[in-house]
């Protein structure tokens, strides 16, 4: 995990530049996904805070990121948000929160970069209330063999550059971690997805 932290500290300076195109593409879909966020919200992987503009106003958000450099660069966006954002440096796989703390947990392109995605999702389930929602905006490995091959080959480069994996099966991982997928929308091909999951308490 410390390697990931170092790599995200390293790319923090150019993170906004490299994500600008994605934000232009995904803005409307993120607005639609986030409009129903409610209650006490845990925002995993705030990064430089690019998604904050897509959050509805008035939320009580606890935002975490393991990279100090990213957190530093999110300050202005967090201050401009019309609601409460409390930021802290923390690893998504081992958060320091009590069980059943949050009504909603939000991840945006986080489960592609944590070392153990199922462990991370289990940790998110632990801090989420039993009737809470996990809201994910994530990219996954395409089931189309051509797209899948391209993602697998590019994954070696993105792993090397910034510790991001393009070949994660996040839907299956969420189910393996004890979530039921309640809403599943493809944003780009079957690669970028807007997902809402609830803890499986059966």
């Amino acid at each position: 995990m410390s390697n990931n932290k170092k790599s995200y500290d390293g790319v923090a300076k150019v993170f906004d530049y490299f994500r600008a195109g994605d934000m232009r593409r995904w803005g409307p879909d993120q607005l639609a996904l986030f409009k129903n966020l409610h209650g006490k919200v845990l925002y995993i992987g705030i990064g430089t805070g690019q998604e904050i503009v897509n959050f509805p106003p008035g939320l009580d958000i606890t935002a975490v990121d393991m990279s100090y450099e990213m957190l530093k660069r999110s300050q202005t966006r967090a201050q401009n948000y019309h609601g409460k954002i409390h930021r802290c440096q923390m690893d998504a796989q081992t958060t320091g929160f009590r069980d059943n703390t949050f009504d909603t947990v939000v991840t945006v392109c986080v489960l592609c970069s944590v070392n153990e995605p199922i462990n991370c999702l289990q940790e998110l389930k632990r801090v989420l209330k039993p009737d809470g929602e996990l809201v994910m905006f994530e990219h996954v490995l395409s089931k189309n063999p051509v797209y899948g091959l391209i993602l697998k080959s590019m994954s070696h480069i993105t792993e090397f550059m910034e510790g991001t994996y393009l070949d994660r099966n996040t839907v299956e991982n969420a189910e393996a971690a004890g979530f039921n997928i309640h809403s599943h929308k493809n944003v780009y091909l079957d690669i970028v997805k807007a997902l809402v999951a609830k803890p499986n308490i059966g």
Partner: protein
Amino acid sequence: MNLKVADFFIGTFAGGTVAMVVHLTLSSQSNMLLTMVLGGLIGMALLLPLKILLMPFFGAFEVMIPLGIIGMGVGMTAGMLSTLPNISGYAVIAWGDLAGFIIAGIIYFSNQRYTEQ
């Protein structure tokens, strides 16, 4: 510029660029199988820096997927075309442009199908 329109421009530009470079590099070869393989490799190698250059402006996956297909597909076919006798470089580039445009179109309609599910 509308990003959907930009996708078609990027596909066309990338296809033409790959075809031109492959033709300039391999037009002296006569072995069609060899030029096909080399053309595919050149196409993939050439479009890697182009992907990194375009991703910040047009989105990572929206650039990565079409250029991944165009690099190999156009590179291979342009390599094969370059071995044909009396074929002009302009014809190979025109093929690259057309193939890039068609691939961008296929991905556009593929995306429509996935996102409407």
